[in-house]
C-alpha cells in the first residue's frame, strides 16, 4: 500500500470552547483531486489551515507528503502550495514582483525565470508588469494560483477557488486544476460549495458537517450510488444542516 499523500488522525480544533473540527480521520491518496464539501462554518477552512501548518491543531495528528504537520512543519511547507479563498497580495507591487518575492521565500532557484514559466503556464503573462491593486477577482485568483505552484508542490490546497468567479473564470480554473493534476501529478485538496464542480473535477469527495466527517468516498462510488449532479446535491443536503432544515420545511 503506498503511503497516502494526506493522512489525518483524529485531527481536532476548537475556538473558545467551540469545536470547529472534531476528530477528523481520513486519507487522501497521491494524485487525487479531493473535494471537501461542507456548509459555512463546517470546519473546511480550519482543516486546510491545520494541514498547511498555518494553525496548530488542538489535538490529533496529520501528515502531508509523509511529513508530520506538528513536528516537521517546515518540511510540510516545502511540499505544499495554498490558494486562500480571497487571494490578497501586495497591491503596490506588480504581479511579477509579488511572485518573485514568494518564489524566493519558497527557495526557488532562478525565481524570475520560474515566474515567467508559471505565468506562461497559466496563460497570464499579460498580468506580469501590472500592479495587483487594480486586478479583478479572476486576475487575483490566477496570480494566487501562480504563487502556489511556483515551487512545484506535491500537494495543492485550494480554499473555495471558484468563489466569486464568473462562469468563464470557473471553467478556466477547472481546466487549470485538471492540468496541474494530470501533467504535474499534483494532489489537489479543494474546499468548495459547488457540487457541479466536484462532479466535473474531483476523484474523491468528503462531506464535513459541524466539524465531523459524515461522508468520504471516491467520486465513482458516490455517483454510482447517488447518480448525477442533482443526486449528489441531494446527498450533500441530506448530510448537512441546510438539508435537514429543508426536510423540516
Amino acid at each position, binding site marked *: 500500500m503506498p503511503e497516502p499523500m494526506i493522512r489525518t488522525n483524529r485531527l481536532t480544533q476548537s475556538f473558545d470552547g467551540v469545536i470547529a473540527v472534531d476528530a477528523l480521520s481520513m486519507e487522501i491518496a497521491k494524485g487525487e483531486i479531493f473535494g471537501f464539501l461542507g456548509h459555512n462554518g463546517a470546519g473546511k477552512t480550519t482543516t486546510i*489551515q491545520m494541514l498547511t501548518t*498555518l494553525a496548530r491543531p488542538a489535538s490529533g495528528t496529520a501528515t502531508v507528503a509523509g511529513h508530520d504537520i506538528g513536528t516537521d512543519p517546515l518540511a510540510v*511547507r516545502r511540499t505544499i502550495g495554498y490558494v486562500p479563498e480571497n487571494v*490578497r*497580495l501586495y497591491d503596490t507591487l506588480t504581479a511579477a514582483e509579488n511572485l518573485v518575492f*514568494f518564489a524566493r521565500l519558497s527557495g526557488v532557484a532562478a525565481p524570475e525565470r520560474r515566474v515567467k514559466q508559471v505565468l506562461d503556464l497559466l496563460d497570464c503573462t499579460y498580468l506580469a508588469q501590472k500592479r495587483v491593486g487594480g486586478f479583478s477577482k479572476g486576475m487575483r485568483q490566477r496570480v494566487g494560483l501562480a504563487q502556489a505552484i511556483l515551487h512545484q508542490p506535491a500537494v495543492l490546497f485550494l480554499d473555495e477557488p471558484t468563489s466569486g468567479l464568473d462562469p468563464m473564470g470557473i471553467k478556466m480554473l477547472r481546466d487549470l486544476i485538471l492540468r496541474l493534476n494530470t501533467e504535474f501529478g499534483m494532489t489537489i485538496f479543494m474546499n468548495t460549495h459547488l457540487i457541479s464542480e466536484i462532479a466535473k473535477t474531483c476523484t474523491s469527495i468528503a462531506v464535513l458537517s459541524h466539524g465531523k466527517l459524515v461522508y468520504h468516498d471516491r467520486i465513482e462510488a458516490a455517483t454510482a450510488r447517488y447518480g448525477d449532479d442533482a443526486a449528489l446535491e441531494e446527498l450533500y443536503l441530506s448530510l448537512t444542516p441546510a438539508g435537514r432544515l429543508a426536510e423540516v420545511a
Partner: protein
Amino acid sequence: MSDVTSPGRLIARQSARFVLRERTVALLSLMFVVLVLISAWLGWSATSTVNRIYLDAAAFLQSAGQPVPTNPVLDISPLSLMRNMSVYVALIGALSAIVIGNRLVGLDRKAGVLPLIGIRPLGRNAYAGGKIAALAGLILGLAAVVSAAAVATFLVLPAVTLTGLQWAQLAGFMGVTTLYMGFFGLIGLAAGAAARSETVGLLLPVTLWLTLTFIFPQLTANLNPTAAINPLSALAVPPDTTFFHWAARLLGPFSLADAYKFASAGLLDYLPVGITSPSFIPPVINLILAAGVALALAWRALTRLSMTQGDYNV
C-alpha cells in the same frame, strides 16, 4: 541553518524595500534628514560667524597694539554645536522610527499576505528576525545620515579640530541616538504586530512617545513641553519638593527622553556642572535596558502574530 536564515534575510530586505516605497515613511524620514542637516548648518553657521567676527576683531586689536583675547569658539567644546540634533532625534527621529517599525509589519497585515508567507518554509523566528533586522538596517541608515551630517560639519568648520576622545564621544552620541530611535522603532514594530487594528497599532506607540517626551519630564523635572524640547532648558534642576523627589525616583527610570537628553548632553559636552539625570540608573544603561525590553516585546509580538488571523479586517 541556511534554510532558515536565508528567508529571514529575504524578509528583511523585502520589508525594508516595501517600507521605503511608503510615502509617509519617505516623507517623515526626509523631514528628519532635512532637520538634521539644518541643525548641522545652524551649528556651522553660528560658529563660523563668531569665528569670523573674532578674527576681524583680533586683526583690529593686533594692529592697534591691543592684547588679543582667546577665541570664544575654542572656549566651549565644539561637540556642543551638535546639541540641536538631540532635539530633532527626540522629536522627529523617534516619530520616524515608530512609523518605520509600524509599517514594517503593518504592510504585510494590511496587504493580507500573512497566510501566503506563513505557508512558506520559514520559521516564525526567521520572520521575526527578518523584520527586526529590517528595522535595524533602516534605523542605522537614518543614524548614518545624522553621523555624516555631524562629521561633515566638523570637517568643514574653521578653527575647530576634534581630538580622538571627542571623535569617540561623537561616535557614542550616534550610538545613543541609534539606541533611542531603535527603542521607538521596536515599540512601533511590537504594537504593529500585536494590535488588532492598524489605527491602534500606530496610536499606542505615538501616545507612548508623547508621554515620554512631554509628560514624564514635566512630572520628574517640572519642565513644560516647550522647555522639554530645548536642549539646554531640558537639563534643569527640578524643584526641591517631596512630589518631584518621589516622581523622579519612581518615574525617572522610565523617563527615556530625559535619559536620552542627559546622555547626549554628557557625550556632547554641554551638560551643566552639578546637574544629573532624574533617574537613579545612568542614562546610557537606562536606554540599553529600555531597548532590551522593547526588543523582547517586539520579538514576542512578531513570533505570536497569527498567520491566519493576523491580517487587518479579517
